[in-house]
């Protein structure tokens, strides 16, 4: 949920529509906080996620990751300006249950004075854009080290239209999932399940990296991954805290619950490794953190700090096993484990939102007349619909992309590395100093 619902006691989906903002007045403090949150969420993607992912690939592919994150940022911004914001957040007329309209194409009507709730619509649109940026960027982890650069560009355009915009509208833009009462505070469905499923579909369609699973493909720079991970943790305060779209107790509590989810996810994964391998690893603890954060995201505005902590613990344990099952058991080469971490985390989090929102568990409660069981049911529908929609849309997108520009590099290109093949550059020239 992107707007603070307690304010007027109206159903959440009504409050989410920017065009209902006529009666609102500007709240400068909310504005200041959402501008800050916008910076934090952009920071999560570039450099945050880019570094987190980048450190995990081999040296020869490092720039491909950074470049893809950066180019996605630029391309999604252009699409947002052109029609994506409109498709996501404007009134879709007869199609409104599924998708918005084109009235706000080229951000028509987004003026210096127009408001969305208590904040300028420019700020609302910009804040939402940062979510639209990071979602396809999450997906690239699924096909890392073997994808063609032009395929990533093509995928981004098609997928934002077919997968992101509809789901975003359904959940946050006043579509049917919102009407049905699905609670997704900051992106369990739209962002995490959506990205996780797309990555899994891509991994299955493209096949494993050459040498997988026998060849070791160790992270080339764990310090880079650490840096990105830490940026993700901090930036997530804007991701979840900003999703209150206000600077108030709701935002504050979302940050606190989010933080506890991250801490608990880290500790749970660390414990799993300590028990099973005898040693905890750096990659393990940061992966647990991401699992905790992804999982707590849909719930973050509806729960208390203990709820956040419990969700984080569950996330750390379940995502740990999910990685092992997907990669070691099923031998699916979702290169950077996007599905087991974000997909599984998003699914769990969306459903657990229905549990930990219960006042008995420190949560903020359910809508009038809804029981925990009912809410869990609604949440499950939300998760299942998102999985199905994302799977189908992603399949279509990758098929189209493969037909149009080709998805995967050939063997020799894969051996040489994507940096030289697609960008004529290498990440590091440390020895250049001697020349």
């Amino acid at each position, binding site marked *: 949920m992107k707007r603070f619902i307690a304010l007027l006691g109206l159903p959440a989906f009504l409050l989410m529509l920017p065009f209902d903002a006529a009666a609102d007045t500007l709240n400068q403090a909310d504005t200041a906080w959402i501008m800050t949150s916008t910076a934090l969420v952009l920071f999560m993607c570039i450099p945050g996620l880019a570094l987190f992912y980048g450190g995990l690939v081999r040296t020869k592919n490092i720039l491909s990751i950074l470049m893809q994150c950066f180019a996605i940022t630029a391309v999604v911004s252009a699409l947002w300006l052109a029609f994506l914001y409109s498709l996501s957040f404007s009134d879709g007329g007869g199609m409104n249950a599924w998708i918005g309209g084109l009235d706000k194409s080229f951000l028509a009507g987004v003026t210096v004075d127009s408001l969305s709730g208590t904040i300028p619509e420019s700020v609302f649109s910009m804040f939402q854009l940062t979510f639209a940026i990071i979602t396809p960027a999450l997906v690239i982890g699924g096909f890392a080290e073997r994808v063609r650069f032009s395929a990533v560009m093509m995928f981004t355009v098609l997928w934002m239209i077919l997968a992101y915009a509809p789901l975003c509208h359904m959940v946050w833009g006043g579509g049917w999932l919102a009407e049905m009462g699905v609670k997704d505070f900051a992106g369990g469905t739209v962002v995490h399940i959506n990205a996780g499923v797309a990555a899994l579909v891509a991994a299955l369609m493209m096949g494993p990296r050459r040498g997988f699973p026998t060849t*070791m493909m160790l992270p080339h720079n764990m310090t880079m991954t650490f840096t990105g991970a830490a940026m993700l943790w901090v930036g997530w305060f804007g991701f979840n805290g900003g999703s209150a779209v206000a600077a108030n107790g709701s935002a504050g509590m979302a940050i606190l619950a989010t933080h506890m989810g991250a801490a608990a996810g880290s500790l749970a994964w660390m414990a799993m490794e300590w028990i099973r391998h005898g040693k905890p690893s750096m990659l393990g603890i940061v992966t647990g953190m991401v699992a905790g954060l992804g999982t707590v995201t849909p719930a973050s505005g509806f729960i208390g700090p203990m709820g956040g902590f419990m969700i984080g613990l569950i996330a750390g344990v379940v995502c740990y096993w999910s990685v*092992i099952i997907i990669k070691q058991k099923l031998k699916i080469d979702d290169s950077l484990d996007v599905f087991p971490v974000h997909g599984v985390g998003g699914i769990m989090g969306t459903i657990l939102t229905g549990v930990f929102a219960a006042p008995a568990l420190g949560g903020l409660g359910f809508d009038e007349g809804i029981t925990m069981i009912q809410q869990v049911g609604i949440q499950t529908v939300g998760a299942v619909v998102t999985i199905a929609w994302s799977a189908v849309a992603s399949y279509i997108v990758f098929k189209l992309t493969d037909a149009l520009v080709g998805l995967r590099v050939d063997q020799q290109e894969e051996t040489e590395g994507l940096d030289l093949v697609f960008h004529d550059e290498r990440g590091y020239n440390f020895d250049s100093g001697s020349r």
Partner: protein
Amino acid sequence: MKFLIAIIKPFKLDEVRQALSDVGVTGVTVTEVQGFGRQKGHTEIYRGAEYNVDFLPKLKIEVALTEDLLDQAVQAIQSAASTGKIGDGKIFVLDLENAYRIRTGESGNNAL
């Protein structure tokens, strides 16, 4: 003249250099290498998977020296680099036909 190639454990570098200089060797060239041998490597964890990394960081030391220093130099490296544990490394001795000092153009023993 002889050309001596020694593979040693990295943390022994300072001791080996000292020992060589004590027997009169003034110049050495050092390279970072990866060694595979009897000494086993280590395990690395990667998200639930365990990998065996079987190369070990070693240093290669190359020394060109006159024939009369050979035995002392081998001896010096031997004792300075030894820890008694597996993986201490090797010393290889090759024949060196000639040597030149680039700066001066001197050759043979004078170039060392």
